[in-house]
């Protein structure tokens, strides 16, 4: 872990609707996850986990507050730093979802190299990076397979490879183990743990599974519309 900021949030507020239909999801919430830190975001359903994740992923606009991704202040009270928020996502963030959500008409290596190609990488460089990641996750031999031809665990590994393909320093994982059995879930979390340590990225992982928390450095919970951070020593190290 370094002292560099991975994700930093200050006084983040999100209000949906107005008047009688107003719903305050988050109010002056703050958190910080440094590069090389693995944070779990836990909270009951409806507490605002997905809303927080969407704001961190520059998908929905906060009502107020500040968000830093790395050293870039991407949301400053009432505006994004750039109107092209997809550029921020493309260049800074890797997403992992509940399901693998690989594009079904692209094979595994094409799925992994798609974002680097959109970012303007030459094809050879994108292909090389994709193959490195597939080897890292031990699915290089499946490079030409379609997602429908792989098992759930292999697809989830390919999805993680895709999330890392643009060399992000931030990974937002939305219940990446929800669709997996315990054995595979632990395997995926161990993988994320390895990425945190070896690639110095900041990960926020939404989870409902307490058994995965020991692999994390921080536990972020949402209580009374605020984020409460509990720091711990990850005692189940890969």
């Amino acid at each position, binding site marked *: 872990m370094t002292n560099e900021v991975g994700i930093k949030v200050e006084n983040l507020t999100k209000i949906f609707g107005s008047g009688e239909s107003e719903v305050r999801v988050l109010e002056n919430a703050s958190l910080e996850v440094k590069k090389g830190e693995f944070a779990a975001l836990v909270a009951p359903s409806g507490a605002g986990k997905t809303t927080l994740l*969407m704001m961190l992923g520059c*998908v929905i606009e906060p009502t107020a507050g500040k968000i830093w991704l790395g050293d870039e202040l991407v949301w400053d009270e009432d505006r994004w730093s750039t109107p092209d928020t997809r550029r921020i996502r493309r260049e800074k963030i890797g997403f992992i979802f*509940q399901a693998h959500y690989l594009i079904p*008409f692209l094979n595994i290596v094409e799925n992994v190299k798609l974002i680097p190609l959109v970012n303007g990488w030459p094809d050879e460089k994108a292909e090389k990076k994709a193959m490195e990641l597939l080897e890292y996750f031990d699915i290089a031999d499946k490079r030409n397979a379609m997602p429908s031809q792989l098992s759930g665990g292999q697809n989830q590994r390919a999805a993680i490879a895709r999330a890392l393909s643009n060399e992000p320093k931030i990974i937002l994982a939305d219940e990446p183990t929800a669709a997996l059995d315990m054995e595979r879930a632990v395997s995926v979390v161990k993988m994320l743990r390895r990425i945190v340590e070896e690639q110095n990225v900041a990960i926020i992982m939404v989870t409902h599974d307490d058994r995965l928390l020991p692999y994390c450095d921080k536990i972020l919970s949402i209580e009374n519309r605020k984020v409460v951070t509990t720091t711990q020593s990850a005692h189940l190290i890969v």
Partner: protein
Amino acid sequence: MINLAYKDIAHSYLKFIVTAMGVGMLLGIVLIMIGVYRGMVIDAQVLLDDIGADLWVVQENTLGPFAESSRVHEDLKNTLRVNPEIDKTAALAFLNLQIKTPDGIMKRVYSVGYDPHGDLPAINPERLVAGRSIEKSHYEIVVSQKLGFRLQDKIRLGRNIYTVVGITKGAVSSGGDPVIYVSLKDAQELQFLYSNARIRNDRARGLKVDADNHLVNAVVATVVKGSDPDAVAENIRRWKHLSAFTVSDERNILTKNVIETASKQIGMFTVILVGVSTIIIALIIYTMTLEKIKEISIMKLVGLPNMTITKMIAQETVTLGVLAFIFGNLFAHAIWDKFPKRVVLEMDDAWALFSIILVASVLASLFGVYKAIKADPSAAIGG
């Protein structure tokens, strides 16, 4: 950059090809409809071109034998020859008949009666595929190949039996019916001679029996070299109290007055079919986009620009349009000769349809593109 449209099509190529074939059949029908119209225009002019006259002289205040009923005296052909600018003349009689084919089916035919010993034979020798033209004044008939008769077959028309002496190919009336040729005398008898019972009945009623069957429907003429057919026609109109049309006037009458309604009808069908094809392509692309909406949300979430997604949808639509056009052409060329009337498939029409389909495909893709642009990237997060 990966071509997403190509990858998507390759992934479900069978579905895509079957869809393109379906739309293609619709476009094939559009091509056939245009071909039917072209065929009508050509059919309308076959007799004009075969007879090869410069002037058509018909009953005053009528538009001639193809558009309106016209009766003039046969000897008008001699009167017209007085004009020094007239070269050759011929009297013609036209009549719609039902004829029993060798298969026993009653078919509508268009009978042309001409003088086999006259100056202007009505049969184009290039159309004769068997036998000869009419040489006798009575009871010989030249029929269209489409009717299925063979040389020397006997056909009953009216009171008499006719012998097939010649078979033509491609001779049709302005309505697309096969043409049969008989001598002028036979045609006049078929058209103007009442049955014996009718004659007896008319006599009993005290009516004067009109025994004049020396009437014809038109007299055609050629002008001497160097004469202006328009001026000669004007001259005839002035001093003979007749209607006279040049061949281009008659062509206009045929294409405008005779087949205009039919061509408008076909035009309407064609426009509707192109519209329906566009809507179908739009719906297919829209449905295909809806099927991919989760993937599109993910693409947007992970940062793919709208342009990349729009390009994918537009390329798929245009590919569908192009494939449908190819299948449409194959379909049209496979079935065109099965139609009972002439269908003329022209490259220019195909290219025009291609341009329309290209534009229509781009327009059709807008629905899919709109849906894709509106797709919410946050839909990829959460359950």
